[in-house]
């Protein structure tokens, strides 16, 4: 498919992108939107109660927020892009062409956001803590302005995220607005904003409880942040239902199994028990905060925060997983083959004329016509067809998936995998290429082939 494949050995590509994206979501939602909202709120409280403690609290928390948002949040945000550039270039390249304008506007919004945040941070002395009321007012306005921009940023990114699962009529008309304003757009945006507020309130509650300079502040802050966390959590319940009602039925059916994976698929009850336990822990913590039970809240708030983080990560997992075999809906499969390309590749094959294969594969003359040559070709096909999800010997290991199956069986399975497993893309290539891969996978599973490079799919030249 003219672009090279790469896989992070053993861990696989999915995990790397998942970790980067999840860290980014947690920081961008929980800190960049949620926590800063709580900081601005604390500044308003400080003004209203004329409290130097609340002001100092808001100011100290800003430092933490700024260092983590700019040091980890911004880097992982760009990082999602870095990772996809290396592991799914054709997909990110295509998405960039569909969503060039929102991404460009988002870039400018992003720059403005950071500049305002930095100004807000560096002017705590000169404005935030100034004696003159108008200066303090201007500092609060900076905070509000920053928050408005973060909401705008979220509104831009949600269009792209929603598109990947619910593309509306884009596959047919290829129109920008039908891609961007897809049917899950509004519920997902509301969901993300509520998650942000909820995470932010829990982080702020933890910070207030641990705040060393004033115990009294912790006592005052508990019901405020506890209440916000509780209200946002209650509002989240119908929003989640609203979101999933907009998801296509075929995808919705995979939601539970996407979290359980084949490890836990036979005990589906565990999904509901785990989610109920996590929600219960958060509710308990909110109650302790509202009732000002300092010690109980101290013990429960880190647990509640962890649970909220886990639930957020779970949502992202489901959303990413249930879009099933497509990276770009109706256009590109997870292995980066185009849907329309499939019939063409069935006739013409993948090996012949692939530009990158010519770059990479300089097969020594003495190997031509040997099994080593066909193994190299098959491993290349594995890289293009399967390696977006399957590793050799690591996560989602192809050799354990196929262990014990006969060679002819693997050949048949490869031809039907996309029908058997709704989230798998079809095999791309000719019948002969499929036979090549089946033979290679059979011997790989039997331990008869060693790999020289796992990340670039080169087998050891057999003696």
């Amino acid at each position, binding site marked *: 498919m003219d672009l090279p494949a790469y896989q992070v050995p053993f861990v696989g590509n999915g995990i790397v992108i998942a970790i980067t994206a999840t860290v980014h979501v947690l920081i961008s939602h929980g800190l960049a939107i949620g926590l800063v909202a709580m900081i601005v709120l604390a500044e308003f409280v400080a003004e209203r109660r004329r409290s130097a403690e609340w002001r100092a609290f808001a100011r100290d928390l800003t430092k933490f927020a700024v260092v983590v948002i700019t*040091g980890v949040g911004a880097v992982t945000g760009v990082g999602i892009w870095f990772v996809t550039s290396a592991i799914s270039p054709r997909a990110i390249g295509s998405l960039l062409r569909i969503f060039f304008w929102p991404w460009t506007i988002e870039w400018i919004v992003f720059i403005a956001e950071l500049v305002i945040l930095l100004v807000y941070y560096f002017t705590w002395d000169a404005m935030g803590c100034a004696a003159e009321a108008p200066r303090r007012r201007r500092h609060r306005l900076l905070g509000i302005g920053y928050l408005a921009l973060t909401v705008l940023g979220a509104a831009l990114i949600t269009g792209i995220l929603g598109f990947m699962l619910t593309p509306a009529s884009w596959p047919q008309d290829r129109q920008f607005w039908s891609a961007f304003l897809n049917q899950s757009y509004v519920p997902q945006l509301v969901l993300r904003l509520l998650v942000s507020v909820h995470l932010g309130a829990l982080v702020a509650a933890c910070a207030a409880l641990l705040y060393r300079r004033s115990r009294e502040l912790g006592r005052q802050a508990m019901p405020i942040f506890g209440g916000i966390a509780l209200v946002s959590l209650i509002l989240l319940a119908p929003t989640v239902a609203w979101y999933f009602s907009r998801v296509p039925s075929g995808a919705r059916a995979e939601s539970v199994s996407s979290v359980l994976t*084949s490890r836990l698929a036979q005990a589906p009850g565990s999904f509901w028990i785990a989610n109920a336990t996590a929600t219960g822990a958060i509710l308990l913590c909110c109650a302790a905060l509202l009732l000002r039970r300092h010690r109980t809240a101290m013990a429960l708030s880190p647990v509640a925060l962890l649970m909220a983080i886990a639930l957020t990560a779970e949502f992202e997992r489901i959303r990413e997983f249930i879009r099933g075999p497509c990276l770009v809906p109706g256009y590109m499969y997870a292995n980066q083959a185009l849907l329309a390309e499939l019939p063409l590749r069935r006739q013409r094959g993948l090996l012949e004329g692939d530009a990158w294969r010519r770059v990479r594969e300089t097969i020594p003359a003495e190997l031509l016509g040997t099994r080593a040559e066909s193994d190299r070709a098959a491993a290349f096909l594995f890289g293009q067809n399967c390696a977006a999800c399957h590793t050799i010997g690591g996560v989602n290991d192809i050799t354990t998936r196929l262990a014990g199956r006969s060679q002819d069986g693997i050949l048949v399975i490869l031809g039907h995998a996309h029908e058997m497993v709704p989230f798998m893309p079809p095999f791309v290539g000719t019948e002969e290429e499929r036979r090549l891969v089946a033979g290679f996978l059979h011997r790989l599973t039997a331990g008869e082939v060693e790999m020289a490079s796992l990340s670039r799919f080169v087998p050891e030249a057999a003696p």
Partner: protein
Amino acid sequence: MSGPSDILLPRPIPTDVIQLLRFAAFTLHMLFVLVTLGTGILSIAYFFQIWWMGKRNELRWDREILRTFVGHKSLAVVLGVGPLLLIQVGHPVAFFSAVNLFAPAWLLILGLLITAFLCMDYVGQRLKVRHGMHLLLGMTGLVALLAVPGIFVAVLIGVENPDRWSEIAGAGHRLPLDLGFHWMARYLHVLGASVVVAGIFQYFWSQPWETHKRRSLLAWIIGGTLVQIALGVMLFASMPRRGDAPFNIAVFTGTLGACWLVAVLIHALRRDRPLRLAGTVAPVAVLLFAMLLARQLNQDRTLVPFARAADRRAELLRSELDPFRQEALATFAAGADRVLDGPTLYATSCAFCHGSSADGTAPDAQRLAVPPENLAAMRTTRSHLRDALLQGVPGTAMPRFGYYTRAQLDLIIDDLDRRFDVLGPTPPMPHEVTPADAAEARRVFGTVCAVCHAPDGSPTAFASAFAPPPPDLRLQSLAPDRAFEVITHGYPGTEMPAFRRLPEGVRWGLVRIVLDLRAPVDERP
């Protein structure tokens, strides 16, 4: 046609506009990158210098410099999004291929940046940091920070030299000697530029009015600029391709800017006067603008023709794919609305081997050395069938269906039971077996069959190692006709032999024995 094809979706804006914007965005990005890198280098250098000279009371100065790091680095990162976006929209094939060549290092950038930023900001934003900690975090941060431009330079060298990809990939994803030398010159040139630009920034921003600090910064800036001129000559000499006229003019203009800057700096040093902002920024602006322009002019000499060729190939591929578009959309729509009920699951997961009438005669079954089981003739228990679905059957095509939840597996089993009665009792024998045949059958089973099938119907230890192993006859049975067929003709592709030489009555006797082995369990609700 040889060579790669571009991304098939159309470019959102014309290529020329992308080139122009890329230059503007990259210039802005580089400005902050240089200040970030240089601030890191200067701060650590000052820490060592002050520490070495034992002037502990001045140790605030290096942190004063580092305090602004949080701002530069944030802007360097966000401003970097622009050029990244534009090069990926304008030149995806060249860029992604080069990234792939150095993929592990490329991915490492994230870890390096996070480490560098957290270390540097911890030191820069804390009021008090102990010296040992300062040294440790500062050095860790600096090493991580300085590694990043090295990786970017390598990737850009990859982008600019598509004709060398094969060579780079063949050499274990390392740059060959000449490109390696070019890489080193270019990398050092970036570091040198960062010291100069950050020195000038700190000179005006941190406003060190003590003379020795001012002089010291000035010395760094002058030294940096002179080293840059030397490194620039090295970089020019190491270029993989000789520059054309526009490139040479841009480099020449940049060099003039550098000389102008040196003159301004030396003048200030001699007269011992503070630098003037406008008088210093003007030569720096000329210098940076001209050199970054030269950089892009050189890059575009290979990138633009490469992109044009890839575009032509994309055009061709697009016209080849157009006839298949409607079919693809239909497939997609069908997938989105699929309903996971029993008949659908059977149709998509089982029927291609076992057949829609479950008799094991689908087209794909013909390819298999071990033919799929005739499910319509099989009788078993729910848990046995579920195990078979979860574990598959070794040595055959029967896969593992572990990704289906328990409920989904039950949907398949219920569907099979509804249509083919697979959980029902074994159908009755069509006719009786004479006592003589029954006795002979018992003898045959005890001496021949028992090698693999234990007297209670379980597989013997010997036969359990077969792939596939013999079925557990306690848990599953076949309709008598089908059992008779298997005993008579054997099961192809397995160890089960044909017993067609036994008298027909004896074979029916064996059928009787085998069917009686199945425990009468009915697990249906």
